[in-house]
């Protein structure tokens, strides 16, 4: 987060009353700057083995009870085919975002405001929502 915030502080600040051009330009500049700063980032840097095990355990608890089929269906329902499972790649803006059931979200460790968990099929991604970059991912996070 420190690295990310340092990178962001060097960019012109995006106003809350921005034009589409300003939004697009800022997003691209931010994306490029973080990508260069994390050039050597690789899968598992953030979702380490220990973190991954903890997250999987928390997710599994959501799949107990009569509604578990619906929980899975709700996540897998999103059209996410074609999203690259690659660190430092942007989540394509043409792809749907799967809604994470809030009952599950409340069981997961809280992230800094700038980051989101996201699912692509059964895999979990960590996304920087302000520039759309995939910061890390974890395969087969859903049971």
């Amino acid at each position, binding site marked *: 987060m420190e690295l990310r915030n340092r990178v962001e502080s060097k960019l012109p600040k995006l106003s809350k009353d921005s034009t589409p051009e300003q*939004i697009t330009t800022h997003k691209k500049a931010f994306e490029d700057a973080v990508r260069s700063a994390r050039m050597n980032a690789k899968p598992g840097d953030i979702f380490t083995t220990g973190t991954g095990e903890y997250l999987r355990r928390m997710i599994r608890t959501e799949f107990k009870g009569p509604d578990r089929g619906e929980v899975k269906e709700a996540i897998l329902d999103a059209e996410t085919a074609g999203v690259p499972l690659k660190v430092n790649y942007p989540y394509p803006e043409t792809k749907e975002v799967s809604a994470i059931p*809030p009952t599950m979200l409340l069981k997961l460790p809280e992230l800094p405001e700038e980051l989101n968990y996201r699912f692509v099929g059964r895999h979990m991604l960590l996304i920087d929502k302000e520039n759309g970059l995939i910061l890390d991912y974890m395969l087969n996070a859903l049971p």
Partner: protein
Amino acid sequence: MRFTMKRHPALSLTIALVIVSGLISALFVRSESFAQAPAKNPNAIATSSAQLRLTLPLKEGSVRFAIIGDTGTGGNEQYQVGAMMEKYHSLFPFQFVVMLGDNMYGSEKPKDFENKFERAYQKLLDNKVKFYASLGNHDQTTQVNYEPFNMNGKEFYRFTKGNVAFYALNSTYMDRRQIEWLESELAKDSSEWKVCFFHHPPYSSGGKHGSEKQLREIVEPIFVKHGVNVVLTGHDHFYERVKPQKGIYYFVSGGGGKLRKGDVRSNSPLTAKAFDTDLHFMIAEIVDDSLFFQAISRTGETIDSGVLARQPKK
């Protein structure tokens, strides 16, 4: 010279009968308004205001707004709904529009903001009608900084109009931070009306999506505890007025740009009124203890209308 008119007894009786029959027919119109027939010709576009019918009372000092969901295709049908909204705006000058998410399908390049939003509602924007957006599962978070969406850089936010508080929520990512914010804002909110709007419906008779039960499990107790009156959602591409649930009025209005024809499950116990044969939008008016609503098809026909009484305060 003074003219005096003596009223004949038969005339008095006639006047009385006219007044009584007027009152009776007004009552029937009010109750009938919950059972409007669906639009008959979805391919025809109403071209004159003679075909438009306003059921809202236009009372002085009321809060007047429109509701659209799942709009951002940039396709002809979105534009046709936008054009019909403009026509109704001339009959019912709503002050603002709430957007129920999926404001932009597909790419979000500068041209897309024009094609999928600005041009579709150009005349309303020119008339200073404000839009307040919430995010859907097809929206980038960066929309929060887009000035015409009035989100002020926030994924979830509150604004007030008269005695009504509106809460825009991000139901795609309902995390602890958002839930705590919602609880704390509602707890201190003394507004007469509390209206929440967001994308995913806690209650819906949609065959493709339907009720989002996990979302409901988290937000419904908060709504009930803090006296939320009305919940407006989209995601399912049709219109549905849900029977009140735990005292709260729910609407699904996700047909502002996309339609999922025939998606409402027949015989759903949730449905008070549904419409899934054409696109639509809604207009609403809140005054004192009443919320008047009207759902209108792309072609300008009224598909549902009525008045909801404000629930007793918690």
